[in-house]
């Protein structure tokens, strides 16, 4: 290990690490760009239908199955599988196959959490809003989604970390990102770049998670210091995924 550690410092001291298309900044930027884009697309695709279904209280089975399937599917396989299709349909290597794989993988947590969050809005709140004359759309927007926000944000957070992680795998299908030096390092004697990139990815993933944690606090000030509501099912956001509500 001592070798790799010193290799890493020499790598970090070298010009190659910081400049040009293989430099860490470029690779990091590529990673972030991909992750961000994929998360945004996944959210756009998954949030509206999930919210609507939750509001209608239908499709619970879908929510449960989607997350079960998502858990069961190996990311490695999906990334590798998308490649032949991407080539067949003219999307080439690199960015697009990875993007598609990432979006597919990011959808389940967002979908299920949004669905459960909206569906589990306390009936009292829904009744009260209806009593005030709110129609479906308004109800959804002004009451259900805001109340479901903790869970929705958790779903986004879970997906965000997942996406940051999987973007690393993009290197397998030709997307130059932080995964590239890691994967090529397996074959090289000098593991300095591999170690540097690996640590960087780890930090990025943790930062992503931390960012969302902070975001959750900021956007949901009324839930700060989770108060335990004794009898009812206070859904700790994470738990939704582990005991998906049986429809």
């Amino acid at each position, binding site marked *: 290990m001592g070798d790799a550690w010193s290799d890493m410092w020499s790598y970090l001291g070298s010009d190659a690490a910081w400049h040009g298309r293989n430099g860490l900044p470029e690779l990091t930027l590529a990673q972030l760009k991909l992750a961000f884009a994929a998360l945004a697309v996944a959210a756009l695709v998954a949030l509206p239908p999930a919210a609507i279904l939750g509001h209608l209280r239908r499709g619970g089975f879908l929510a449960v199955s989607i997350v079960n399937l998502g858990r069961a599917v*190996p*990311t490695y396989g999906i990334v590798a599988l998308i490649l*032949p299709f991407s080539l067949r349909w003219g999307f080439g290597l690199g960015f697009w196959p990875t993007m598609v794989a990432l979006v597919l993988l990011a959808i389940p947590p967002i979908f299920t959490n949004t669905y459960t969050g909206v569906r589990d809005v306390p009936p009292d709140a829904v009744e009260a809003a209806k009593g005030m004359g709110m129609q479906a759309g308004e109800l959804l927007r002004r009451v259900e989604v805001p109340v479901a926000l903790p869970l929705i944000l958790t779903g986004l957070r879970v997906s965000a970390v*997942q*996406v940051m*992680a999987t973007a690393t795998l993009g290197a397998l299908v030709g997307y130059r990102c932080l995964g590239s030096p890691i994967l090529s390092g397996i074959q090289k004697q000098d593991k300095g770049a591999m170690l540097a990139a690996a640590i960087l990815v780890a930090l990025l993933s943790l930062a992503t998670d931390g960012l969302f944690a902070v975001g959750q606090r900021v956007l949901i000030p009324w839930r700060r210091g989770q108060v335990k509501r004794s009898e009812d099912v206070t859904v700790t956001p994470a738990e939704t995924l582990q005991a998906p509500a049986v429809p």
Partner: protein
Amino acid sequence: MLLAAEPLVDWSWVSDRYDEVWSMTKEHLSLTAVAVAIGFGLAMTMALVATRWRWTYGLLVGFCGILYAIPSVALFGILIPITGLGMVPAEIALVGYTLLILLRNIVAGIDGVPPAVKEAADGMGFERWRRVLRVDLPLALPAIIAGLRIATVTTIGLVTITALVGMGGYGDWIKYGLSLSFPTPVVVGTILSVAMALAFDVVFVGLERLMTPWTRAARRSSGLADDEPAAAPPASVPSAVGAISG
């Protein structure tokens, strides 16, 4: 592979290699079993510590959360210079991903035991550890099994990525297919991995129902109980994600 006319899967290639499928299956199963077993042991230890000394919970969850958030490829990149390739880095990574979900579920399970029951047991003269062993844990079983279920299913998906460090299970075929731009083993390897995961999922669901049919209502509230006290936990990473294998 580029020709639209070519089928995605060459089944004859697969049928010539059933013995390989079998040996991959065995490797996949053993990698999973070892990871979940070790993960369970560690998580149980941490859970017992956390229920006894509450203040440690935040730290332990934080630590497991960090391990969970780090993508496997990055973890491999950090481990390989120390451990080389093979079973060791593979299992370290796999075990690392089970810890968070198992820890949280075991603790949630123990916390979910109604205080009345615990008091009754204490009243009957149980020492603390005996009570935990004979009362708390058995009652926490549903939550524990739920955690094992998720941990197992997630691990099965993750085993494929260990192909990058020389292990792999069904991941061997995914890696082979990727290197030759040959879809067949990639498709079949992926399908087999999903099939195994779903099979175990079904088994665990069955186990959950079998063990505790009468506590389904209680299970819901215990599994969903707020397991964090008033202070918000530190790096509390959300649990249960589909294959955070990146």
